[in-house]
């Protein structure tokens, strides 16, 4: 019973969502709209779980005196933003948007921009022509790197053309193969879940 009910719910939901795609009857549209609403409601609860988990983990670390200053900053940020929004609103010019624009956005952009430094370091340390395939990859990378910036045309008119060719033929062929593989894999998995063959989502068995 413990597994039969969830399997039945999954089967019925899966079949409904599949069949409704081909129907335009008001009842089918109404069921479809209700499912979409429920989807959002369930997802909203996962956000609550995320916030609760974040608070729990940070409080545990604080009580164990592990990374205390960082955990306190993280928790104060979690509290500060909703408080600012509740007190001053979220309209243009509000303290909430000021904090977002002048604190959160630059901090996140700074962390993300570190990637450029790691790329530069990795290009020196790891991008070596150890074999013929590695050399081909290296030359292609250099051509695309130049081809994606305006100086390419100043160096040679061929650069953008070669970059275009690399992107639109070998790269796209590989990407299409991956996408087709993902599509077939998704269909197979969906069928296995709907038919109850794949049950790992129930208890990890």
């Amino acid at each position, binding site marked *: 019973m413990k597994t039969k009910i969830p399997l039945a719910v999954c089967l019925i939901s899966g079949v409904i969502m599949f069949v409704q795609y081909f129907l335009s009857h008001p009842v089918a549209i109404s069921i479809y709209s209700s499912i*979409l609403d429920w989807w959002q409601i369930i997802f909203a609860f996962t956000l609550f779980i995320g916030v609760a988990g974040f608070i729990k983990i940070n409080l545990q670390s604080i009580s164990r005196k592990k990374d205390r200053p960082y955990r306190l900053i993280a928790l104060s940020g979690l509290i500060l933003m909703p408080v600012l929004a509740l007190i001053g609103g979220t309209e243009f010019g509000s303290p909430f948007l000021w904090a977002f624009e002048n604190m*959160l956005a630059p901090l996140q952009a700074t962390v993300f921009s570190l990637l450029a430094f790691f*790329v*530069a370091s990795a290009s020196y340390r790891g991008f*070596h022509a150890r074999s013929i395939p590695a050399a081909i990859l290296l030359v292609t990378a250099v051509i695309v790197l130049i081809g994606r910036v305006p100086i390419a*045309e100043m160096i040679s008119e061929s650069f953008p053309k070669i970059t275009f060719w690399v992107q639109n033929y070998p790269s796209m062929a590989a990407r299409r193969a991956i996408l087709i593989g993902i599509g077939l894999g998704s269909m197979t998995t969906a069928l296995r879940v709907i038919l109850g063959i794949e049950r790992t989502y129930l208890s990890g068995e």
Partner: protein
Amino acid sequence: MNRLKIRWIIFAGLALVIIISYIIRIDLDTKPSPLVQKSYDYIESLPESTVVMFCFDHEASSLPEIKPIALAMLRHAIRKNLKIIGLSTFAEGTAIGYMLMTKTAQEYGREYGRDYVFLGFRPQHISVFLAMGESISHAFPLDYLGNRVDTIPMMRAVDNYDDIDMVISIADGDRTTQWVEYAGARYHQKIMGGITSAMITSYDPYLASGQLYSVVGGLVGAAEYEILLGTRAAGNRGILAQTSAHIYVIAMIIIGNIVYFRMRKGRG
């Protein structure tokens, strides 16, 4: 030289290159690529009051690259007097989208509710894409400011995708793909992208098949779009830094290979 010292030199070199690129002012001659030209021409061809949707499908981390793209496309749409519906599928994109839309609308003296609306954020983007195909006011009963969407003047004539000419997804990940897969495939919604450089190749198959109308990609795309608009802004300011960083990375690859082969030769 030890590894840590080399790493520090590489980091400091890159920082120096980028700082100098932002200090000096060189306007690089940027020729618009066919995709940017296609995006610009499409918005240019739309008659006044056509409704377009801007979706801010990104987080704050990609703002330095995403903001010039979003601003260039928004400025064009607002300058053309198009009606704009904004929304976000990321919680962080909500504040960014609202600020960018409001700032740009204020530049041109546009009025909230009459010329543009910001719907805000709803969780679970796929259900949002699908729900808007049935009814936007059902998917978003209230806008970002808490107004009932069905009472907003601009929204009275907008029910679902049938009333929207183009969705412009400003994205730093694969969310534009999901617009194509759900709003495009099921509701035949026309979709355009404003995406980061790193994601461009991910969209090539969708562009080649025509499922994605066009894209403005990365800082280069923003710079090209600005040139078409006739105003060199953040995209053109950043392009020199990006070009210098690319040259720096290429130099690092070359130096790294010279050192590698010399060491290999030394070992016999």
